[in-house]
Structures are given as structure tokens and as C-alpha cells.
């Protein structure tokens, strides 16, 4: 097996893997709808809209520390 063949197999396997991951991600996004912290993904759009320095963050750093 020469290097070109290895390269071809490597390419094929990794591309297949990446495609699986990408579709897994699509499935994850649209089935769960919420992320690890229980926020609806669409809520994150508000990060741009409410971005004054005294607006409440969507997920606050300090909340996180209290939980721990």
C-alpha cells in the first residue's frame, strides 16, 4: 500500500466521519432544541439585541459559580 492509497483511505474515512458528526449535530439541534444549560438555542439571538452592559446576560458567569 503506497502513500497515495493511504491518503485516499484516510480522506474517505475522515470525510465520512465528519459527515456523520455534522448530521449528528443537526439531529441534536433540532431534536433537543435546548442546550446543555437548558436554554432554547433561539434565546441566544438576544445576546445581540440586549447587549447593554447592564442588561441581564442570557447565561451568566456568576449564576454558574453559584450552582457549583
Amino acid at each position, binding site marked *: 500500500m503506497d*502513500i*497515495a492509497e*493511504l*491518503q485516499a483511505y*484516510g*480522506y474517505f474515512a*475522515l470525510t465520512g466521519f*465528519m459527515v456523520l458528526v455534522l448530521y*449528528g*449535530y443537526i439531529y*441534536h439541534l433540532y431534536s433537543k432544541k435546548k*442546550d*446543555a*444549560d437548558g436554554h432554547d438555542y433561539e434565546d441566544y439571538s438576544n445576546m445581540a439585541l440586549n447587549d447593554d452592559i447592564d442588561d441581564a446576560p442570557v447565561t451568566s458567569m456568576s449564576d454558574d459559580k453559584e450552582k457549583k
Partner: protein
Amino acid sequence: MFHWLEKHPFFFAVGVFLVISFAGLIEILPNFAQASRPVIGTTPYSTLELAGRHVYIKNSCNACHSQLVRPFKSETDRYGHYSLSGEYAYDRPFLWGSKRTGPDLWRVGNYRTTDWHENHMKDPAGVVPGSIMPAYRWMFTNNADIDTAFAEQLTVAQFFSVPYNKPVPMKDGSTTVVKMGSSVAEANALALAEAKLIAADMKDQDVKDAVANGQIPEIVALIAYLNSLK
């Protein structure tokens, strides 16, 4: 897995990096050894030719002229045999260009002469009516940088084993040796000897005088380089 990535910006960055470096790893790296092998008959550039190549680069000739003949009838009719990978083994950097505002130059040495280049660089539209190429008259007075060309020869010989002072196989079965000086003085002498051959075919008296006085104007080096493209 996705939940976890969302919470860790550092690993997120690592993930991005893996995804974007993937193509480069697969596509580029494995081919390196193969593509850098010269075809028979390809010789390294002499000191003067390399100095001419630097003049070519300094004036971004590659902005308008390609050095890549594609395998189409229309291109091989116009420019000669299509390009082979190994022919570029000593081209650092490659000068394929991305735009043909002017014609391809990869085999220009086959069909243009010293005399043609001299007239053309002085007044392109005078040689080719309708040409939009600007004149490059300063090349007749600026001197070429032979020292830097020599330094580059030394570098590629040391780091990339480019065969200077060694027999290189030619197409007819013979071998040829491209000489490189052992000192700055010798390199300049070699370049000057080559420059005298070019200057003998030129008409410009100032250039002829300069070469007779031991100087090498940029135009002489550039023509040496262009003549070497075959």
C-alpha cells in the same frame, strides 16, 4: 458530546482548528516528496538567471504573465508543450501567476530573442502595436543584485540539496553542470561572463559599456532569465 463542547470555549477552539486543518493535512502533506522531483533536462538557475528572476519578481511581472501552460490544444499551439510538475522543481517561489493580462512566459525562451526583449522592454507598444504593457526603462540603468542571487543559490544548495556544481542529466543522455561560485567574487565573475554573452547581442550602448566596466544592469539579468525559460 455537543452539550459538552458548548460549555468549553477552549475545546471549542481546538475543535474548530481540527476541522479546518483536516483538509490541509490530507490534501497537501502526502504529496510533497513526489511533486518535488525534477524531470530529466531541468537544470537549476545560474547566478545571473536567478538575479534576473529576482528582477522579474521585484517588478511583479507575475501580476500579468502566467508561467503555466495548460493541456489544451489552443495553449500548446500558442506556447508549446504543456507544463510538467517536475519542470518546476527548482522554482522557489513558483511563478504560475493568476492572470494573463499578457501572454504566458513559461517557454518564452523558445521563441523570443535577446534583441526582441531589449526593444520590447524599452517600448512595448513599438514592438507590439496596441500593447498595454508599460515600458521598463529603469531596468537599463539599475544594477542587478548578484550577491543576493548568490546567497539564494547557497541557501537552496545547503538546505534543499539543489545540484549546483554537480552533473545534472539531460534529455539526450549527456550531463551538464551548473556552476556556482565558491566566493562572492567568483560568483560575480561567473555572472559577468554570462552577462557579456547577453550584452553582445544587445544594441543599447550604455548597457554594453556598463557590462564592459564590470556592471550588470537589471535588463541583462532579466533577459538571461527569460532566455532560460524553455
